[in-house]
């Protein structure tokens, strides 16, 4: 019987599989950052053991870094100490660091792909749930906790039970103004924030095939928001064209051999999945979330569900969520005033996202009382944006182009949305307090966020194109 893509990759990385035990899975690439690694290095120190394969771990500083004046020392003492610890740990244990000031620095899930470190067929882990992003290349990539970071540093392996497999097909073609972010927000709204827990998802279908690598990364990135262990897409010519020539990608004869192998990475026609879901791209309109988990989303022209539409059991959590958002059941969001616009995060901060936004806002200016933050995913994205003159378009529109980092996606640094304010955000989570204590988040695509920046309100970007 045929195998799924996920099974092909997983099975070829098993070092030890014993009945009653989780599989010991070999990890090809391990990314680390300043927030979830210090305790893992401490663990190694306590055990008196080295990093087993230091060349297979790469580090960057992203979660906790300022997005202004990165050339100056970090002002906040705890953040500075955490970033300094990363420098100290990576230097002591021989791990390559793309720290602040390095031309490769950026959000871990942006730099891996753009440097050609992320490749098809790999197993990739990082102490960050959005590691699923790398699945866009046909890799098995998933987020892990710090104890597991320590496992990988110590042994280059991780102990995991094999998840079930789900296939999500999106057939047909996307409408005007509908982006891959809308696809994934739509899917999550249909299957809920826990709809794929216990599964590894493969995305397939014409609408997925037609996406660029950047757009595929946005989809895989948010797999975790429906609870999935990860998400992946079979590599194809779009994938190979993206990788070819990148800094750490195979070159010459190695490239040819790698390509031959990568072309075997697809789910066999007779492979079976534990669950298959099918959606039609034509049903998807630009999406927006109204609640406090990513499953609470809808088409931007729709109304928030009324209480009567929900089962009795679901109502208390739903009401709590809308109270936090200060929104009414049954209300619509079109025309709702927004205070902040955040375009950034590992979901939507790549050069393609910035280009889309720049094309849309060229010659326009932001609404007067909206603050717009554009935070590029990496130093390379920032440099590319400047080379293409995108920075000037943003400046003329009244948008602030800042320096790379996770920024207001999780508001660990000083980029916080003030209490009670509404932020339309291209990031991945609308949890209570995610963008700052009592801040209120509407998740949306870069185009829908840009439309809000210009109009000052939640708008249907299709009417502005």
């Amino acid at each position, binding site marked *: 019987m045929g195998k799924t893509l996920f099974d092909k990759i997983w099975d070829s990385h098993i070092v030890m599989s014993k009945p009653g035990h989780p599989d010991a899975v070999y990890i090809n690439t391990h990314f680390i950052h300043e927030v979830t690694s210090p*305790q893992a290095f401490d663990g190694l120190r306590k055990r008196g053991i080295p990093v087993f394969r230091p060349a297979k771990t790469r580090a960057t500083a992203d979660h906790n870094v300022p997005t202004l004046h990165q050339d100056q020392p970090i002002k906040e003492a705890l953040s500075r100490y955490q970033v300094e610890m990363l420098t100290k740990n990576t230097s002591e244990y021989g791990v390559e660091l793309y720290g602040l000031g390095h031309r490769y620095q950026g959000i871990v899930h942006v730099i891996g792909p753009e440097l050609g470190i992320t490749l098809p067929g790999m197993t990739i882990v990082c102490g960050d749930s959005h590691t699923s992003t790398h699945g866009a290349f046909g890799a098995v990539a998933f987020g892990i906790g710090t104890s597991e970071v320590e496992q990988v540093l110590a042994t280059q392996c991780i102990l995991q039970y094999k998840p079930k497999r789900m296939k999500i097909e999106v057939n047909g073609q996307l409408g005007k103004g509908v982006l891959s972010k809308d696809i994934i927000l739509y899917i999550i709204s249909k299957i809920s924030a826990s709809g794929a827990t216990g599964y590894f998802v493969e995305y397939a279908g014409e609408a997925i095939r037609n996406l660029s690598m950047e757009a595929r990364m946005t989809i895989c990135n948010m797999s975790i928001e429906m609870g999935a262990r990860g998400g992946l897409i079979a590599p194809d010519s779009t994938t190979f064209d993206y990788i070819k020539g990148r800094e750490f990608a195979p070159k010459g004869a190695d490239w040819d051999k790698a390509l031959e192998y990568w072309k075997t990475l697809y789910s066999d026609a007779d492979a079976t999945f534990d669950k298959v879901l099918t959606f039609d791209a034509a049903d998807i309109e630009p999406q927006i979330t109204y609640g406090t988990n990513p499953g609470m989303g809808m088409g931007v022209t729709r109304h928030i569900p009324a209480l009567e539409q929900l089962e009795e059991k679901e109502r208390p959590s739903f009401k709590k969520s809308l109270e936090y958002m200060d929104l009414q059941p049954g209300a619509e969001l079109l025309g709702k005033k927004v205070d902040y616009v955040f375009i950034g995060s590992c979901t939507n901060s790549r050069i393609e996202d910035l280009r889309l936004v720049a094309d849309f806002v060229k010659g326009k200016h932001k609404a007067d009382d909206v603050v717009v933050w554009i935070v590029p995913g990496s130093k390379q994205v920032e440099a590319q944006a400047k080379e293409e003159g995108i920075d000037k378009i943003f400046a003329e529109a009244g948008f602030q182009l800042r320096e790379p980092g996770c920024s207001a996606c999780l508001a660990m640094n000083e980029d916080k949305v003030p209490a009670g304010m509404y932020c339309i955000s291209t990031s991945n989570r609308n949890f209570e307090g995610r963008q700052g204590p009592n801040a209120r988040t509407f998740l949306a695509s870069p185009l829908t966020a840009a439309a809000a920046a210009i109009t000052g309100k939640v708008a249907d970007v299709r009417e502005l194109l």
Partner: protein
Amino acid sequence: MSKIFQHLVSSAVPVPIENIDTDQIIPARFLKATTREGFGENLFRDWRYEADNTPKADFVMNNPLYSGKILVAGKNFGCGSSREHAAWAIADAGFKVVVSSFFADIFKNNALNNFILPIQVTDAFLDKIFEAISANPKAALEVDLENQFIRIVATGEKESFDINQYKKTCLMNGYDDIDYLLSLRKEVEQYETTRPFNF
């Protein structure tokens, strides 16, 4: 952190909210520490305290009626971020067991790696636990890992729970995954020789 878990009888702290994400368990702004200790005081920080740090009277952890080593929460507990700080905060606040009708995968792994037992019960049994605590805030629950059951002491109602045998052995004996993986060094080196590329 005690590395062994076998049996426990304790009252419980109920948080009957669904989809409790790790940002609620421990907000990102408290992730700046570089050790595993001290996160307990910020467990459920924004539900527990006002912006000026005064305790919110209506949150269960600020109500002296409720205490114990068992946290009972609504379904899909621990969704969101992979931050192990969530498990560290729960452990640091003195909890040994978390009961819910559904757990997010990464949280479940993180909890087990910190010798906290996540017990998944049915929706119906979860409701019974909440009812028992509502009738008596000091209602005791018994957790028996060896025999894999959880029991409401007052009524005697019990439900068995699943745990994989490997993790059960780890918890009952205080073993961790690194000990096991380090014992596979020869197999790992052998595996590496079979792969021409790093993928």
